[in-house]
């Protein structure tokens, strides 16, 4: 089997690296003045910082407004229009931290998100290894089938999921949501990890086997440390997509495992008017994401560079 018949998508990283440096400078007759002029023209304009700045302002404005509201009383939110809270209050946050039905939502969300991340990465690791190292019966079709699950609309699956997990008596448990989210996170994790694994030369495997390593021992002791950043990126994206998903999480839970996201929607429809608490709850859902993103910021660029989101 030659390289050309492998799904090229599997070779993303290798491709990005092997761009020949041959297209580099044509040594044209060098003219100092001309070169300087061209250098100036080729450079980025002095005002290019304006574009990302404006974009970030656009991104931050709605978030700022939410944070602003979370420190206001309801009277101030509804009665007046102020750009900063005139008497900042922590009451909204106190409501969330003292009311079980609120803070349990965060605990539930964290539990099933972490479960999902662990399961997804754990089952994806051997599969990604298989896809990156071996050819086997039906591999390409299997890979495409996995990816279609990432593309499938959750709305299609919501109702049968409810029936399926009812049949197993799993409705309203954390594991049900964690398993259901595997539908789109496992394919994603396989895709990302496969990219990182393809970047590790095969000679390493062969040397280890010659040195008498068994497959599990080699995998855990030698291989996993080599792709640790890949595992980090995969875990990050699993965390992200499980954390932001609402439709399936809401359908599969009623009270005991209700995620924070669905606590919020139900409170809106029920009482409708406690804007301050709603804003505070929203702000608190942003914080875990912001923390995670800060810690993996260097890896994200790499994960994106592989184009495996």
């Amino acid at each position: 089997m030659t390289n050309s018949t492998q799904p090229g998508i599997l070779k993303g990283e290798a491709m990005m690296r092997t761009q020949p440096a041959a297209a580099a400078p044509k040594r044209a007759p060098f003219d100092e003045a001309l070169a300087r002029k061209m250098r100036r023209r080729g450079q980025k304009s002095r005002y290019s910082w304006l574009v990302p700045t404006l974009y970030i302002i656009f991104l931050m404005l709605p978030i700022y407004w939410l944070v602003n509201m979370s420190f206001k009383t309801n009277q101030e939110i509804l009665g007046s229009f102020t750009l900063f809270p005139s008497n900042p209050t922590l009451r909204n946050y106190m409501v969330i931290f003292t009311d079980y039905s609120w803070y349990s939502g965060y605990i539930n969300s964290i539990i099933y998100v972490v479960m999902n991340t662990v399961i997804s990465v754990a089952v994806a690791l051997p599969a990604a290894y298989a896809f990156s190292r071996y050819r086997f019966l039906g591999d390409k079709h299997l890979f495409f089938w996995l990816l279609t699950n990432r593309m499938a609309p959750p709305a299609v699956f919501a109702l049968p999921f409810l029936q399926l997990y009812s049949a197993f008596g799993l409705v309203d448990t954390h594991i049900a949501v964690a398993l259901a989210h595997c539908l789109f996170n496992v394919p994603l994790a396989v895709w990302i990890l496969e990219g990182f694994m393809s970047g590790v030369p095969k000679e390493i495997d062969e040397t280890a086997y010659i040195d008498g390593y068994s497959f599990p021992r080699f995998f855990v002791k030698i291989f996993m440390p080599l792709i640790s950043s890949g595992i980090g990126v995969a875990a990050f994206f699993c965390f992200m997509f499980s954390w932001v998903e609402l439709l399936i999480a809401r359908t599969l839970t009623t009270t005991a495992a209700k995620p924070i996201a669905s606590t919020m929607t139900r409170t809106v429809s029920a009482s409708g008017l406690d804007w301050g608490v709603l804003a505070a709850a929203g702000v608190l859902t942003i914080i875990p994401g912001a923390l995670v993103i800060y810690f993996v910021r260097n890896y994200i660029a790499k994960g994106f560079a592989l184009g495996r989101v």
Partner: protein
Amino acid sequence: MNFAWMAWTWPTAIFFITIFALIAAMGVWEYFRPGGDPRVGILRFETTRGDRLFISLLGSSFINLAWLGLVDTNLWWSLALSVAYAILVFRYV
């Protein structure tokens, strides 16, 4: 464990058995004649037997839907059309 909620009927069961049998047959075929017979057909990219089966099935589903939406509910004609389409796909794609 109760699976009444899956609401199996004979026609849908036959449908799925057919699909799984096709996939299994492809697997056996591939096992004895590996490589998948890759070639470049009229779509101008390389396809294997498995790809051609997928194109046939997906195309057939759209042929049947179009027939149902545009012509009438008698799907035997569109089924015949789908078989013809599948033969063309396996011959030329």
